[in-house]
């Protein structure tokens, strides 16, 4: 997987995250596409790469928002690392497995996000954090896996083939 391909995907995902996602929000909840891309990357390439792209992607997100620089960088880094650790243990071609890993990894990343909010003295009631953000966002993000995972793999394989030629 090449850095330029990842950068292209990350840019596209960031634009989607800030534009269209508002219109597909379910009960106010939006999926986290940047985290999903980070999870795909970690799951396919391992924890080190997952953590690296997680930090880079999250940092881009933070720079775009302009405040709390590092908040998404750290939570996406953990999500990428976790997905990478799962990728070393599970079969990679099964969409159901990837969906499960995406659900748990997103939940882990968002839980780190919640802890970092506490560190920043932003108190979100635990009930709201878990049942209104962490679980629904993880579920919505995981539901996108069947539509996106094979496309991402095919995109990356095409890029690899083109670069080899």
């Amino acid at each position, binding site marked *: 997987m090449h850095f330029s391909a990842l950068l292209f995907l990350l840019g596209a995902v960031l*634009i989607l*995250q*800030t*534009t*269209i*996602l*508002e*219109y597909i*929000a379910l*009960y*106010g*909840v*939006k999926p*986290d596409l940047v985290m999903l891309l980070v999870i795909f990357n970690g799951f396919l390439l391992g924890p080190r790469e997952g953590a690296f792209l997680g*930090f880079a992607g999250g940092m881009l*997100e933070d720079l775009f*928002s*302009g*405040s*709390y*620089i*590092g*908040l*998404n*960088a*750290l939570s996406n880094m953990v999500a990428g690392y976790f997905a990478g650790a799962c990728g070393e243990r599970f079969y990679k071609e099964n969409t159901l497995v990837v969906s499960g890993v995406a659900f748990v990894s997103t939940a882990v990343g968002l839980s780190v*996000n919640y802890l*970092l*909010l506490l*560190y*920043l003295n*932003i*108190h*979100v*009631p635990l009930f*709201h*954090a878990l049942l*209104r*953000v962490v679980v*629904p*966002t993880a579920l919505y993000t995981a539901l996108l896996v069947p539509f996106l995972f094979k496309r991402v793999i095919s995109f990356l394989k095409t890029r690899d083939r083109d670069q080899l030629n």
Partner: protein
Amino acid sequence: MLAALVAATLAAMRVTAPELARLTPLESRFRDALAPVRISLTWLGSQARYAMSFSVSMVRAGERNLALEQEVARLESQVTQLTEFKLESERLSNLLNYKQVMAKRYNLLTASIVDRDPGNWFGTITLNRGAGDGVKENMTVLTPEGLVGRVVSVSAATCEVLLITDPRSGVGSLVQDTRTSGIVEGTTASSRMARMIHIPNNAPIEVGQAVVTSGLGSIFPKSIPVGVIAGINSESSGLFKSADILPYANLNQLEEVLIVTEVYS
């Protein structure tokens, strides 16, 4: 190495917390420079939404012949556009009426939303009005339906508004019928709810009662509708109770809002 990176990031998070510092001239210029990009992205989003609805309408017209299908699609597209104009006109007309009704109490400035926080935790929106239009920090933002939030940072051409559902928001409020006071604080943006805390246990409150701003020691003017009580819970201390508040303003579908630039006493 990793520990140093994490420590540096944690420090950066604190330094860039928006409450701790006003916008520096550089940040202000950066935000203004980014405003056209954000407006373009918002336009891109609305076009994509239009394109999606257009595709759906094409699929539904699948049984008709091609010429008729194209004609219908064209007309549907026109109707959609006209409906959009009609809705926009209605919204602006409502805002104008509200401005005229409220002219004795407030000086109001109409603003459009150009950007919204993409995540599920925070509830902030960016408006197309800034210091050049007389907008200042802590000004109240509302719609004819009710309170939206307050301005937290201003650049020359834009301003950022903290919604009342954001976990960093707190609004001095009271229950309209019983005059019971409390603080309405945000929970998470995605929940679309706020909650009123520190209500004494013996206070007579019920589901369905209206909550308005108290104006006491608050940056918000008095008597602005905030929301309606949707549920009542006991706080863990046992001394107080809290109430779930459903805001009157539909904060997830805002398009135009009003900024209170002056309050006439």
